[in-house]
């Protein structure tokens, strides 16, 4: 139901400029937000080294935004195929629950805590379960042909139940300290979670930009039937995209559970799906599928976290974030709409024709 696009994208010459623009606007928003934070708090940019670790608001923003960044990247691929995954929050809860259960929650007062399974098994187990749930979404969307929002709605509703089933309705506290490295640890003075973000970004960006996969995904998002006629295996690619999104949510679940040192089936990753969608949209990927930018989504996630941190530091009640987020979504989605874009494009053409 997309209006015929007679925007700038059809013209090959300014293509590069538009490409740059896509990442330009999210970056500009982020810079503006950071400057605003700096105005309210002169020490905002200060980064100090304490105990050999980097400390400061910026490091804090990066560290706290890492689960959202990872989920937003997975979701970007899904949205690029003209799909949506609203179950990521539930998968975060499931992954956290599996990890916490595999570690086991008994508090040992004397001596080191011995987990039920070794750490690699814990991590791989949680990720495997999360990927399986992603595949489940993939099967429903690509093989059964269900609408993505319905297919993932099922997991959104049932997923929290599954997470509580795994933890038997308890909030499992994790006492196993090596596990804390994932969400709380530092390597070379930098938060470990940032290495994970970088690794996910590197792998996904390589697959999407150095192979033809990214092009295929965009083709599926723009016109699935045309994509199939050109010989793209649309079904299997769609399936794997959802599996990857589940995997990303699983990684985020590990970080979240490691950060808060517990797994709460009811509240872990609550409303995270909405933040992730917001991050993707802010990053410049259109919800109607097609062209996507992984880096943009990462920036989008950073915008959301900066917004939250800024609101905290200004001293306004943190709940106000929701109102601000709502207004941001309204403005951004109106700016992204075909109608406004076409008008801007028309204005630009008049401006170009004038001289």
């Amino acid at each position, binding site marked *: *139901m997309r*209006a015929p696009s007679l925007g700038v994208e059809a013209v090959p010459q300014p293509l590069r400029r538009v490409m740059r623009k896509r990442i330009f606007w999210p970056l500009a928003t982020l810079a503006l937000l950071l400057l605003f934070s700096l105005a309210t708090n002169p020490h905002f940019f200060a980064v100090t080294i304490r105990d050999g670790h980097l400390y400061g608001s910026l490091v804090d923003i990066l560290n706290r935004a890492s689960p959202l960044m990872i989920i937003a990247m997975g979701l970007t691929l899904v949205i690029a195929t003209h799909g*949506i995954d609203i179950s990521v929050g539930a998968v975060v809860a499931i992954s956290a629950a599996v990890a916490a259960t595999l570690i086991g929650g008994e508090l040992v007062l004397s001596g080191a805590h011995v987990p039920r399974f070794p750490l690699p098994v814990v991590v791989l187990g949680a990720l495997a379960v999360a990927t399986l749930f992603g595949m489940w979404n993939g099967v*429903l969307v690509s093989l*059964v*042909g*269900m*609408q993505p*929002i*319905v*297919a993932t*709605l*099922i*997991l*959104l*509703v*049932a*997923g*929290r*139940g*599954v997470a*509580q*089933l795994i933890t*038997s*309705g308890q909030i499992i506290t994790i006492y196993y300290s090596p596990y804390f490295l994932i969400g709380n640890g530092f390597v070379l003075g930098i938060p470990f979670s940032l290495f994970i973000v970088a690794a996910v970004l590197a792998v996904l960006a390589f697959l999407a930009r150095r192979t033809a996969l990214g092009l295929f995904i965009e083709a599926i998002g723009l016109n699935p039937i045309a994509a199939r006629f050109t010989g793209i295996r649309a079904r299997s690619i769609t399936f794997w995209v959802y599996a990857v999104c589940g995997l990303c949510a699983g990684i985020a679940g590990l970080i979240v559970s490691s950060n808060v040192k517990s797994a709460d*089936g009811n509240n872990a990753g609550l409303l995270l799906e*909405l933040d992730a*969608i*917001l991050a993707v*949209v802010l990053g410049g990927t259109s*919800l*109607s599928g097609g062209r996507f930018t992984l880096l943009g989504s990462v920036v989008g996630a950073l915008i959301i976290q900066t917004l939250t941190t800024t609101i905290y530091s200004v001293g306004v*009640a943190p*709940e*106000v*974030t*929701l*109102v*601000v*987020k*709502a*207004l941001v*979504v*309204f403005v951004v*989605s*109106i700016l*992204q*709409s*075909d*109608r*406004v874009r076409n008008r801007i494009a028309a204005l630009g053409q008049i401006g170009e024709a004038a001289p």
Partner: protein
Amino acid sequence: MSNLNAAVSARSAPAEAPPIAPALSGRAARFRVDARLLPLAVTLALFVLMFGAGSLLFDGFFSLQVFLNLFVDNAFLVVTAIGMTFVILSGGIDLSVGSVIALTTMLSATLLERHGVNPAAVIALALLLGASLGFVQGLVIQTFQIQPFIVTLAGMFLARGLCYLISIDSIAITNPFYTRVSALRFSLPFDTSISMNVVIALVVLAVAVYLAHYTRFGRTVYAIGGSEQSALLMGLPVARTKVLIYTLSGFCSALAGIAFTFYMLSGYGLHAMGMEMDAIAAAVVCGTLLTGGSGYVIGTLFGVLIFGTIQTLIMFQGSLSSWWTKIVIGLLTLVFCLFQKAFERGSARRSASR
């Protein structure tokens, strides 16, 4: 195009949704009518089956009061889900309903308790607020042609945020009018009773059935859901109807919020968390297609009743934990979606083979 003609001529067969496939020859058409009613029949049968199973398994389950309590405990969900059904019938979605309910409870509580406003004025104001929120969302969706999903997502954030702007804590309501309405019970035969909320829900249901199947507005909703392009070409007031649909949904949510306030007697920003998903699932379970254009308002009632029955069954069973409700509801939604899918494919194959 022909399905839209059928939509307009639905006056002759008011209780039926427009056919999904083009009009057919006599025998096939008769089959099609049955097939269209099939999801509704299955939902009804499932409800009877579940209630029957509960009656066999547990002592005291089979009673009129247990049945009526399904209404008492879920009246607000019925009201919201009905608003949602109209949105879904038109091919859209409204994610803001849960938070509009929370905002209504919050607004009512603060106006009643902290500012001493007259209850009648509070109710009028809450309904106006809900309807205007819906109106604005509809206007944005229609004017800028943005996906309803993202606009109502923003509406959801906005309404929840406004709750917290009023207060972060829960506000208890001690207003005499509200407490009296909350305790009010209408006696029915066999020592049973229903609450005010049930009356509200039933009135809304009756009005909604009339709106959907006996008015021009209802037929336009079905036509937009069938194909917005065709509805436009037919000269139907698509823009006005779409804005009205979201206004209606906002109004229903506010009304549900008032019912929820009577039920809980408190205002809280965390009330009705995730209820939008319950409402969507209720509509899907009763056979409303999320692509729009097919479904029944009355079916939504059975969708909600099935939820209530699952909850009651788990409560009677005792040893099963509450999270099983979520899993069972998820599975039920899945089964119904698969069922719809198979049905769609079947009808597609039939029309292709001719």
